[in-house]
C-alpha cells in the first residue's frame, strides 16, 4: 500500500456479514464474513462449487441473501431505492468472466456505453475517454472491431476498459485469467496492479488461479463448500497449517471418505429385483 492513503486505509468499502444463501434447498454460502478495505486488492479463491461466484453476485447486488447482510460503501443495496442503487453502481466497475461485451456494438462503443447512458458529456469527450481506456489496457487500434473478432485476452481487456471507463472506486474481476495463456494472464495481473496504484481503486478478484492470486492479492479469502476456510494476507495463507488450505495450494485432490452403507445404497438404489 502507498503511504499517502494511510488515512483512508480503514474505510470499509464492502462489508459482508453472516451471509447465508441457498440455491433451491442447497446451501451455497454459509455464514460468510468479509470486510474489504479501501485501496486493497482482495482475492476470493476456491474450487468450483465453493460459492465464490455466488458471493460475487451478492457483492454486485445481483442476488439477495437468505440471511445476513451486505453493505457497499456503507449502504445495504437490498434496501435502497432504484435510483440510489444506480448511483452506487455507477461507482462500481465489473469485468465479467467472458467479458459480457455487447455483441451488437464495436469495441469503442462498448467502452463508451456507460458514458453514453449515464452522462451528458460531449461526444468528443466520450470518444477520447473510451480511447484513453483502450490505451490503458493496450487495445489501442482495435476500436472498430466487433467483439466476435477479438481473441480471449483482448475480450477481457476490452471488458476491463469498459469497467473502468467511469473511473470507479470499486472494481470487480470474475476469473481474469481463466482461459488465458500464462503470459497474457501475467500481463493482466500487471495491469490490475497498475490500475490500483494509479486510480486508488479497491479491487475484488474472484479466481481459482493460485499464481495470479499470489501475484496481486493484498489479502486472500479462501472459500470451501460455502464456508470461509481462511482469510488473511498472502503469507498467512501460504503458511497456514490447515490441511484443506494446503491441499488447495498443492493442488491435491481431496481423499473422499465414504460411508459404506450409504455408498452401497446409492449404487443400487431404484434397481429392479433389489
Amino acid at each position: 500500500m502507498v503511504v499517502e492513503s494511510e488515512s483512508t486505509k480503514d474505510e470499509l468499502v464492502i462489508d459482508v456479514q453472516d451471509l447465508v444463501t441457498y440455491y433451491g434447498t442447497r446451501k451455497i454460502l454459509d455464514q460468510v464474513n468479509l470486510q474489504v478495505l479501501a485501496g486493497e486488492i482482495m482475492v476470493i479463491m476456491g474450487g468450483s462449487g465453493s460459492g465464490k461466484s455466488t458471493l460475487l453476485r451478492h457483492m454486485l447486488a445481483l442476488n439477495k441473501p437468505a440471511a445476513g447482510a451486505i453493505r457497499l460503501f456503507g449502504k445495504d443495496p437490498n434496501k435502497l431505492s432504484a435510483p440510489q442503487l444506480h448511483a452506487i453502481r455507477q461507482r462500481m466497475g465489473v469485468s465479467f468472466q467472458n467479458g459480457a461485451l455487447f455483441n451488437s456494438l464495436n469495441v469503442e462503443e462498448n467502452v463508451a456505453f456507460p458514458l453514453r447512458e449515464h452522462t451528458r458529456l460531449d461526444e468528443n469527450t466520450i470518444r477520447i475517454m473510451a480511447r484513453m481506456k483502450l490505451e490503458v489496457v493496450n487495445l489501442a487500434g482495435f476500436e472498430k472491431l466487433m467483439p466476435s473478432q477479438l481473441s480471449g485476452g483482448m475480450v477481457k481487456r476490452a471488458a476491463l476498459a469498459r469497467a473502468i471507463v467511469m473511473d470507479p472506486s470499486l472494481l470487480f474481476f470474475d476469473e481474469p485469467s481463466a482461459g488465458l495463456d500464462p503470459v497474457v494472464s501475467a500481463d493482466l495481473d500487471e495491469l490490475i496492479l497498475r490500475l490500483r496504484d494509479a486510480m486508488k481503486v479497491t479491487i475484488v478478484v474472484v479466481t481459482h488461479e493460485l499464481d495470479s492470486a499470489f501475484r496481486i492479492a493484498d489479502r486472500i479469502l479462501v472459500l470451501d463448500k460455502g464456508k470461509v476456510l481462511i482469510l488473511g494476507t498472502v503469507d498467512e495463507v501460504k503458511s497456514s497449517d490447515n490441511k484443506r488450505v494446503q491441499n488447495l495450494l498443492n493442488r491435491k485432490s481431496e481423499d473422499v471418505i465414504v460411508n459404506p452403507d450409504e455408498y452401497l445404497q446409492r449404487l443400487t438404489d431404484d434397481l429392479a429385483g433389489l
Partner: protein
Amino acid sequence: MNTRKFIERIGEKTIDAIEEVGYHFSLLVESFYWLLVGPFVKQPVRLHYIFSEMMKIGVLAIPVVILLSFSNGIMMAIQGIVTLQEFNAESQVVPGIAYSVTREFGVLITAIVVAGRSGSAIAARIGSMQMSQEVDALRVMGIEPVRHLVAPIIFSMLVMMPILTIMADSAALIGGGLYTGFVLKLSLGTFIDRCFDVLVVYDVMQGLYKSLIFGVLIALVACSNGFSVSGGAEGLGKATTRSVVMSIAMIVMVDMIFTYFLSR
C-alpha cells in the same frame, strides 16, 4: 406413490404457469413505467433502439405479411365461391371475405408472421445476452434491462402491429377481390366499393384492437423466454422454439375468446 407424484407434478406445473403469467405482467408494467416515467428520472427509453426494433419487427415483415395475406384472400374467395354456389349465393362472397379478413384473418396472419419472425429473434437475442452475462452487465452498470431491452420492443409492437394489420387487411381484400372479379366478372373497384358498403369502422377496429394485444403477447412471451434461458446452446434453442409455439398458441386462444365476446 405414482399418483402422488403425478398430482405433485400437476401442482408444480400450475405454480410455474402462474409464476410465468405473473412475470409477464410485471414485465409489461415495468415496460410502461420506463416508457412513461423513464425520461423524468434520467433513464429514458432510447429512440434509436425503438426505431431499430420498429424496423426489425415491422418494416422487414411487410413483404411476408402482404404475400401471405394476399394468398389468404384468394383462398377465401375460392372456398367462399365454391361453398356459396351450392345456395346460388356466390355474390354474398364479398361480405363474407370483408368481415372475416378485417375481424379475423388479417390480424391472425400478421400475428403469426410476427411471432415466427420477431418472437424467435427476440427470444434468441435476449437469451444469448443472458447467457453471455450481458444482461448482468447492464444491471451492474445501473441500466435496467427491462428499460433497455423490453420497453423498446413493446412500444414498437404497439405501433407496428396495427400498421401491419391494416396492410394485411388491404392485401387480403385485394387478393380476394381479384379472384372474385375474375370468376364473377366483377371489377376490383366494385368489389372494394361493396366491401366498404358492408364494413363499418367497428369491424376494422376489432382487428386492430386484437393486433395490439397480440403484439404485446408476442413481445412478453419472447422476452420472458429469453431472460429465462439457462443451460447453454441447447437451452437457447429450446427457449426460441418455446417462445414461437407458446405465442402462436396464446394468440389463437386469446383470439377465440375475443371473437366470442366481440362477435355476439
